[in-house]
């Protein structure tokens, strides 16, 4: 009876450990997937650029003396 109790406890502990380890592995995998690593020096090339030019302003400037 005592031995069966020890087995049951051992299975419970091992199952809990397995779940914990599985969760830990899951978080590790998620962290590795979402890790941001933009190469150094590339950020300045990613700055947004507006290619439009204000023709109205040029017209106004041209109309000046």
């Amino acid at each position, binding site marked *: 009876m005592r031995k069966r109790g020890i087995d049951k406890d051992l299975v419970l502990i091992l199952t809990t450990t397995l779940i914990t380890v599985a969760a830990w592995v899951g978080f590790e995998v998620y962290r590795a*997937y979402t890790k941001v*690593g933009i190469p150094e020096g590339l950020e300045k090339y990613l700055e947004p650029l507006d290619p439009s030019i204000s023709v109205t302003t*040029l017209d106004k*400037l041209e109309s000046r003396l």
Partner: protein
Amino acid sequence: MALDYKSSLARYRRYVQLVAEKPLLQASLFVIFSLVLMIVLLVLALRPTLVTIAGLVGEIRQQKSLSDQLNEKILKVQEASAILSQNRQRLEVLDEAVPDRPMWLNMAEAVQSTASVSGLVVVDMEMGPIQISGSEPVTTKPKDQNAVAEESPMPVGVAGISFEMTATGDYGQIRQFLATLENLKRIVLLSEARIYKGDAGLLTVTVKGDVGYAQKRN
């Protein structure tokens, strides 16, 4: 010592025989070994593999995203280049409006010329501080802690040179001069114009303002 070793082995053999005889105990032992094996495999084999795979997949995703952004930027640069080619001739007027250097002499001549055309007589003209060479001018005057910081009327990226001039003439000439000054190709922001009557009956005008030039980008 050798006797103890043999007796221990015999004891374990008896235990294994006992386990083999009892199916319930055998099944229980298999469950425990399976769980232990799963934990060991998960930690030692699966975890590093999965982390490496996830890291590589994540990196591929990021590189793809970066590539898309860079492609988009290249398209924008090409578009900007095409627009620049189309309007290159017209951009000279922009260089004239906001030159990349102070060009204070040209400005002084333009103001003088405008005053002459309007019929005004320039009495006095002051410009500055002006950066002739080197870095931006710095003041050696100690800062007054209570003084309110003077805000430049120029937009961001444009440095201003303040000027002040005094001229004499009649009202019509002053009005024409101010209108012409505000409409020069070089951008001039007038902040103050004071007109008062002089001794000889002529009007004297004092004009304060700023002319801009493009600041060098670091």
